[in-house]
C-alpha cells in the first residue's frame, strides 16, 4: 500500500496575514505544516500500517524552497517527499496548483491513494482534491470522516449536512479527509532526527513538463482589481462575571425577544 499525502507549508495562522505588493500571501517567516494536513499524514501512516507495509510519500508545492513543514510530516513517519518549488509558482491559483500536484503524483508513480485535507488553512479554496482527481482521471471521495481500505477498494464515510454517506470506489483514488478524523501523533525525538536524512526530491515545474504560462499569475488567468480594509464591527458592552452575569444575558435575550 503506497499512499501519497498533499501537505502545504503555510505561514503561522496565529500571526496576522498580509499581502505582498503582487497581491500574494506574504510568506517571509518560517513556514509550518498546515495543521489540516496533519490528519491526512496520520491517516496515511495508519492505513499503511494496517495494510502491513508500504510507503507514505509527501507532496508539497511552494514558491520558495521551504522544507520545515515537510520535515515535521517526515518526522511523524512519512518515508520521503516531493517538493515542487520555483519562484514561477508565485500567484498560482487552485487549478495551476492541482496541475503541479497531478504531475508530481505521476512522477512518484505506483500510488494506491492520494490523501488531502478538505482545504488549506491559508488559501482555503477547497477545490484542489476534485481538480487533482479529474486531472489524473481518478475517482474523488471527498469530506471523509472515516476511511477504510480492503480488497482494492476504498470506502469512506462522507460528511453531509444530514449525517454521512457511505461512498466506495476502486483504487487508485483521491480522498480528502476532514479535520479531527484521527489524532495526529507528535513526532518523537527519534522521528525528528530520522527526518533530517529522509529524501526530499526537489523539482521545478519545468521538470514535470509544465510550461511557465501554466502556473503562477499567468496560469491563473485572473487579476486582482481592488484590495481594501473591511469595515470593522463595533464592540458593545463587556461585563465581568461576579456570579450573576447570566442575568445580563437573560436580559439581553429578553430585549431581543428570543425568550
Amino acid at each position, binding site marked *: 500500500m503506497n499512499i501519497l499525502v498533499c501537505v502545504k507549508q503555510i505561514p503561522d495562522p496565529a500571526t496576522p496575514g498580509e499581502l505582498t505588493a503582487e497581491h500574494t500571501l506574504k510568506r517571509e517567516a518560517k513556514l509550518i505544516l498546515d495543521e489540516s494536513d496533519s490528519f491526512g499524514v496520520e491517516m496515511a501512516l495508519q492505513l499503511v500500517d494496517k495494510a502491513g507495509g508500504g510507503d507514505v510519500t509527501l507532496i508539497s508545492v511552494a514558491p520558495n524552497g521551504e522544507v520545515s513543514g515537510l520535515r515535521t510530516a517526515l518526522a511523524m513517519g512519512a518515508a520521503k517527499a516531493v517538493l515542487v518549488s520555483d519562484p514561477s509558482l508565485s500567484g498560482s491559483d487552485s487549478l495551476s496548483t492541482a496541475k503541479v500536484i497531478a504531475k508530481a503524483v505521476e512522477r512518484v508513480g505506483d500510488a494506491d491513494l492520494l490523501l488531502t485535507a478538505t482545504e488549506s488553512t491559508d488559501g482555503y479554496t*477547497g477545490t484542489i482534491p476534485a481538480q487533482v482527481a479529474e486531472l489524473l482521471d481518478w475517482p474523488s471521495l471527498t469530506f471523509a470522516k472515516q476511511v477504510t481500505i480492503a480488497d482494492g477498494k476504498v470506502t469512506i464515510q462522507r460528511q453531509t449536512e444530514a449525517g454521512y*454517506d457511505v461512498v466506495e470506489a476502486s483504487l487508485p483514488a483521491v480522498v480528502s479527509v476532514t479535520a479531527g478524523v484521527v489524532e495526529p501523533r507528535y513526532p518523537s525525538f527519534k522521528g525528528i532526527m530520522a527526518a533530517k536524512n529522509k529524501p526530499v526530491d526537489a523539482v521545478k515545474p519545468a521538470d514535470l513538463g509544465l510550461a511557465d504560462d501554466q502556473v503562477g499569475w499567468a496560469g491563473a488567468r485572473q487579476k486582482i482589481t481592488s484590495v481594501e480594509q473591511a469595515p470593522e464591527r463595533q464592540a*458593545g458592552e463587556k461585563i465581568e462575571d461576579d456570579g450573576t452575569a447570566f442575568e445580563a444575558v437573560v436580559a439581553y435575550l429578553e430585549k431581543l425577544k428570543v425568550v
Partner: protein
Amino acid sequence: MKILVFAEADNGAPVTSTLELLTKARALGDVEAAYVGSDVDAVAAAVGEYGATKLYTADSQGSLVGVVGASLIAAVIAVGQPDLVLFAQTYDGRDAVGRLSARIDRPVLTNGYSVTVDGDSVSIGAQVFGGRVLVETQFTGPTPHLAAIRPKSFVAEPSGGAAATIEQVDLGETGRSTEAKVLDHHVEEREGPKLEEATIVVSGGRGIGSAESYGPLVDELAQLLKGASGASRAIVDAGWVPYSKQVGQTGKTVKPKLYIALGISGATQHLVGMKGSDNIIAINKDAEAPIFSVADLGVVGDVQKVVPKLIEALKAKS
C-alpha cells in the same frame, strides 16, 4: 450575460444556497440551472419561481451528485456556452466546480461573497484574513467563468416565474470519475433548524472544557432557544464534534439574528464565519480574547459556570 447555476436540492426542494444564487443571477442576466438528483419536476418548478428558465438534468446513477454535476455542466457548456457558472461553496458544489474546472481547463474563483458584472467582465469579491480585507478579482481568460459563492452571501427572493423547462442531458464520457458510488445514506437525528438557516446559533470552543460538555452546554442552550449548535475549528480539529458544525473560514458562514459564542477565543478563522450576525453574545474567561471585539454583549467569565446558571434561569422562565 448567460448564467448557469448548479442547483442542489434536499427532498425535492432546492437548498437555500441555490435560491440565493438564482436570485443574484437573475439580476445579472439570463439564468438557467443544472441539477443532478430526484424530484426533477418539483425542482424545476422551484428554480423557475426564482428565475431559472431551463433546468438541465441528468441521473446520478448512484455516483456523487457533484461529480455527475461536473459532467452535466460540461455537456451543457459544449452546446450552450454560458458566460458564467455559479456554484454554492457546499460539499457537492465544491466537488462539481473542482471537477469541472479541471475538465474544461478554466480557473475557479472561490469563497465569493459578491458577483459584479460590467459589460463582459466578471469580478468576484472575497474576504481574506478572517474578513479584515476585501479582495476583488476579475476573470481575464476565456468564458465560461467559474465561481463558488459562500452560502448566505445573498438574500433569496422569489420572482414568481413559471416552472423551468426540463432538459435531460446525455453525459457522454465520464471516465473513472463516476466510479465513486454512494452505497448508503446515514441521517443523524437533529433537533431544531439547520446551522446555516437558524435564527439563533450557539457555538462552543475550547473553553467548554471537554467533548462531554458540548451536549449539556452548547446543544442544551441551542435547543432551549430553538436554535442550532455550531463549533469553532479548535474543537472540530480535536474531534469533539464533526466538521459539519464548524463555523468559520474553513467551515460555514452563518448570519443569524443572534450568535452566542461559548468559550471561543475568536481567531480570525472563526470571526469571518459569524461576524455578519445581527447580534453577538460572547462568554469567555480571557478578557483579552478577540471575540469581545465583535460582541454586543461580552461576559468575561467561565463558560462552565455561567452557562449552567443561564440554562437554569431560561428553564425557570419557560
